[in-house]
């Protein structure tokens, strides 16, 4: 599968990779350069592969309260919230953002690309789904404009004032592009930088992409998207969270409104909250030189205490960093070992983020 910007990526000389069936740029010039451009100026990401599932109609709110871990009924118009879709064992089917278009009646779910068909199928199987769901992933494009200078490029290209929306809020904005020009702009992102994500009709995407690049935004690939999110400790579904892990184990309870409503998977989470869990997702910063990678084993005093689920070098810290599920008896600031090619390398257990975010809340 290809996004509407495939030809633009090729024209820019991007290195393309297969990402769950999508042909996407992994880098244009260099992951490190693109990473630093987002931290210091403005990165531009084609994330049109993301899925958009609309939930609309009488009963939309009740339906979503069953399907999602957050109290959807407390959301205001133009609010965004991060949430999970859990299976009946509390395992994470997907993590997503919920956009409240019309309280009670109309919502958009932005879901992970590779999970879109699975999510749609799961949602359809929940009682009350009839007539509510509309998967518009194919005709929705999405760009992320991220970095301290994003505000200037948005002003210049779209006449859009970033401060007209607060963190995790969105708005509609009309732009003088071609055809139907309504953009949905949200103050959200997956990088820890200030900026927005823009949803639009696929036909508008190319014009906006080129306009932002011409004004100075730096196109960034999936490689930088991954190192940026890892520096913030944001989980990646399929690596750090999946149907075999729960939000409690992953330390993501902030996106679970456990006490205020019923939802699928809640019993397991209540039990885990009461009895505790045996492992937790933690951050590791390497004290020795080396780069932790997915699957590497973590040890403490000769004992296997867990496994790395995401690892890389942090371009900002110039050190190896990782997310790892670790025995919950291990505390923050303890020193553990990561086994890298049979050698134990020292790492400190921390609570992410690894790098301070720049989000203006």
């Amino acid at each position, binding site marked *: 599968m290809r996004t509407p910007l495939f030809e633009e990526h090729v024209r820019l000389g991007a*290195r393309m990779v297969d990402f769950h069936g999508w042909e996407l740029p*992994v*880098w244009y010039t*260099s*992951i*490190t*350069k693109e990473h630093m451009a987002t931290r210091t100026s403005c990165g531009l990401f084609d994330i049109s592969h993301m899925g958009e599932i609309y939930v609309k109609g009488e009963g939309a709110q009740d339906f979503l309260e069953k399907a999602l871990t957050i109290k959807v009924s407390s959301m205001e118009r133009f609010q965004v919230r991060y949430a999970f879709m859990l299976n009946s064992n509390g395992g994470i089917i997907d993590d997503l953002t919920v956009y409240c278009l019309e309280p009670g009646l109309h919502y958009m779910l932005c879901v992970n690309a590779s999970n879109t068909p699975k999510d749609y199928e799961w949602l359809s199987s929940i009682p009350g789904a009839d007539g509510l769901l509309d998967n518009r992933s194919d005709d929705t494009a999405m760009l992320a404009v991220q970095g301290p200078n994003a505000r200037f490029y948005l002003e210049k290209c779209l006449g859009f004032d970033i401060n007209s929306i607060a963190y995790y809020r969105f708005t509609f904005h009309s732009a003088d592009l071609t055809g139907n020009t309504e953009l949905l702009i949200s103050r959200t992102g997956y990088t820890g930088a200030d900026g927005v994500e823009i949803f639009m009709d696929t036909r508008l995407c190319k014009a906006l992409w080129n306009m932002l690049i011409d004004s100075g935004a730096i196109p960034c690939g999936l*490689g930088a998207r991954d*190192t940026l999110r890892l520096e913030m400790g944001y989980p990646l579904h399929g690596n750090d969270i999946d149907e075999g892990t729960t939000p409690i184990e992953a330390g993501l309870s902030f996106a679970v409104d456990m006490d205020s409503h019923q939802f699928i998977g809640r019993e397991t989470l209540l039990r885990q909250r009461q009895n505790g869990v045996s492992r937790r997702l933690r951050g590791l910063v390497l004290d020795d*030189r*080396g*780069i932790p*990678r997915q699957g590497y084993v973590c040890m403490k005093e000769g004992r296997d205490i867990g496994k790395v689920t995401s690892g*890389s*070098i942090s*371009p900002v810290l110039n050190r190896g960093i990782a997310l790892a599920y670790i025995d919950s008896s291990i505390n923050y600031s303890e020193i553990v070992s990561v086994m890298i*090619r049979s050698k134990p390398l020292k790492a400190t257990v921390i609570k992410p983020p690894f790098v301070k975010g720049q989000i203006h809340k």
Partner: protein
Amino acid sequence: MKFPEDLKYTKDHEWGRPDGNRLIAGITDYAQDELGDIVYIELNDKGSSIKQGEVFGTVESVKAVSELYAPASGTIVEINEALLEAPEIINKDPYGDGWMIVIEMEDRAELNNLMDSQEYRTYVEKEAK
């Protein structure tokens, strides 16, 4: 993409530059380009012996881990210590400052197992397709 004429090449994208009984070795322009930003390198110890085709170290980019295979058998008589602190040199100058080790060769005839510049270029063009 550069393929210097005076070098010998392995199928795993290392190069060797013969200098008497010594062979200077590194990775090719193609290899560094495929890996992207190189951020880490580990090399076997100076003084250790190695066989042709055996691993003499590991190089890592942001995305990938790649082992390094010796283009010839012998003793590693020098390693490029500068790379340990600044592995990005390999991206900038893979055939020059980005050299990795010097091998005192056991048997110079082993170089006949390697590709010349023209053969390697053809090999890479096939692999790229």
